């Protein structure tokens, strides 16, 4: 029920946008009759594409299939009229701005009315008699029997919402699913373009990753080993002059060598955690949870294995997210959920901290996002001030 409500509210949001786009398009169309409107055609078409893409994004996140955006809108009236995608978007706008809006309003008034009528017996006495009605506006309630009648109506609203909520949400999304998907050939060529772009991003991400490894080897491990040779050199020089000093230098050299080993282990683990191969994603995530400073519940329900690179990405996403949780969120609990739906892996990391997480704020999220987009996946971060923070990632399993 919660999910259905979320969809209905989301749909209502895009319906308002659609309404605004329709009004603007009509306004510009009328303006075109006196030529002034021609100036605004590009903005109107861009607005239209923006709204349609919002809906595409919403429906993609809902799943199961992703609805690809056709890219930037045509900017002249003539191109737009010829473009079947644009014409289909007009039809969608008309539907969604009217039908979708009404369904959305019904959808959110159901729970509101359920609460209002469900609590009616508690406060109906406070109302002046002509105002004491159910959410339908009639009839006027004058006694307790009537008040409980209204209460029963509230329960009915709740039942309707539970029973028909999901269907209502699907009904609202239907025009979008039908009209905003692209014809197969267009869809395919766009997908190829998108994959080419993400493939380049993948190679970038890979190069950045290699750079990180090079840096931690040169600036970390190698420096430790250089320190070892420096201290050993100093110790050798001190052997005859000052044996006690030499002993101390050797001790330091040993410490430095041990540090080098520890850093080498960290670097190796950062490339591909061995635990992933040994114990699978669930086991590896359990390991992450035990080392996390914030108590963390891991809930993995994933039959079978995904491609190694997908599991590694999932692992690093969770590692980064949990690092952020313990560093910045001030949370008392975190939860990691992993589900596999068909051939998509869905990860969710939630904490009850202070929220306000910002992707630009120097967190490792930028790198993570690149990695995910390289896998043709989707990352969403919601973190209102005051929390909670939820990071959701969807990845194609690749197997």
């Amino acid at each position, binding site marked *: 029920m919660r999910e259905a409500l979320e969809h209905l509210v989301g749909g209502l949001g895009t319906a308002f946008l659609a309404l605004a786009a329709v009004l603007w398009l009509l306004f510009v169309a009328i303006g075109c009759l006196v030529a002034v409107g021609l100036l605004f055609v590009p903005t109107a078409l861009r607005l239209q594409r923006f709204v349609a893409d919002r809906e595409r994004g919403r429906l993609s996140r809902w799943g199961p299939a992703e609805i690809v955006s056709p890219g930037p809108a045509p900017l002249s009236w003539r191109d737009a009229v010829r473009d079947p995608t644009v014409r289909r978007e007009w039809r969608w706008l008309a539907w969604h701005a009217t039908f979708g809006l009404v369904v959305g309003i019904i959808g959110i008034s159901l729970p509101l009315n359920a609460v209002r009528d469900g609590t009616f017996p508690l406060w109906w006495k406070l109302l002046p008699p002509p105002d004491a009605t159910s959410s339908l506006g009639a009839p006027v309630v004058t006694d307790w029997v009537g008040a409980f009648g209204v209460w029963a109506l509230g329960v009915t609203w709740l039942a309707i919402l539970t029973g028909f909520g999901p269907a209502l949400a699907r009904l609202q999304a239907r025009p979008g699913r039908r009209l905003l998907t692209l014809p197969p050939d267009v869809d395919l060529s766009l997908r190829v373009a998108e994959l080419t772009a993400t493939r380049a991003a993948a190679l970038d991400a890979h190069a950045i990753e290699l750079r990180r490894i090079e840096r931690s080897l040169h600036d970390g491990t190698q420096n430790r080993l250089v320190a070892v040779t420096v201290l050993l*050199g100093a110790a050798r*020089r001190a052997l005859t002059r000052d044996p006690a000093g030499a002993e101390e230098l050797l001790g330091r050299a040993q410490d430095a060598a041990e540090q080098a080993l520890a850093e080498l282990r960290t670097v190796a683990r950062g490339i591909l955690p061995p635990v992933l191969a040994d114990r699978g994603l669930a086991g590896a995530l359990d390991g992450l949870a035990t080392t996390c400073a914030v108590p963390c519940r891991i809930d993995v329900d994933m039959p079978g294995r995904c491609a190694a690179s997908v599991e590694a990405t999932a692992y690093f996403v969770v590692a980064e997210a949990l690092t952020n949780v313990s560093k910045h969120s001030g949370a008392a609990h975190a939860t990691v959920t992993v589900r596999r739906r068909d051939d998509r892996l869905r990860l969710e990391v939630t904490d009850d901290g202070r929220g306000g997480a910002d992707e630009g704020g120097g967190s490792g999220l930028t790198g993570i996002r690149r990695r995910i987009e390289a896998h043709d996946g989707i990352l969403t971060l919601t973190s209102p001030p005051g929390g909670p923070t939820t990071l959701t990632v969807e990845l194609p399993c690749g197997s």
Partner: protein
Amino acid sequence: MRIVIAEDDSLLREGLALLLRAEKLDVVATADNPTTFLAAVDEHKPDVAIVDVRMPPTHTDEGITASVEARRRQPELAVLVLSAYVEQAFATELLSGGAARLGYLLKERVGRVEEFLAALHRVADGGTAIDPEVVAQLLTRTRPDAALNRLSPRERDVLALMAEGLGNTAIAERLFVTEGAVHKHIRSIFAKLDLPPDDRADRRVTAVLRYLEDTQRRG
């Protein structure tokens, strides 16, 4: 000899200072970033600066930029640059303004204390110290060139040590020959490579490096 060290890795910085102080050298200041390094140079007017190439904030070539700036402020300053890895192209760029009072060594050379101290003194006394690795890169990447091929194996050894910045005495010690023999080899090398003979080690280094680089480019 008054020394300032610029190295961002604390363990290495302390280790280096420890080693030099044990050798009775005067480490007057250490710095972990370019800004404090330049401030230390201004304040202490050292003879030598030992500088790590990669330092904050970006860990790329801050050390080089800082060295150049330090020498601009104090032209007599000798600079020994330490690097996690060496690139011959980088060395030639560093030495493009003359090789006097400049050194470019792999970090781990510090562990061979005698050789490191020799290089440090050489640089402080107006000479040059180029890492053997740089010279090896030059020699292996150089296409066999008629003039180079005419060098005897011993002359090649001498050439390599010359390119590192070693003086005649040091070369003689390394190769267990007399200084007179080294002198003869060097004359022969300069004749075969058609270079004007020069006794000043730093000019010799530049000449030899430039020669090797040119052959490489031509090849």
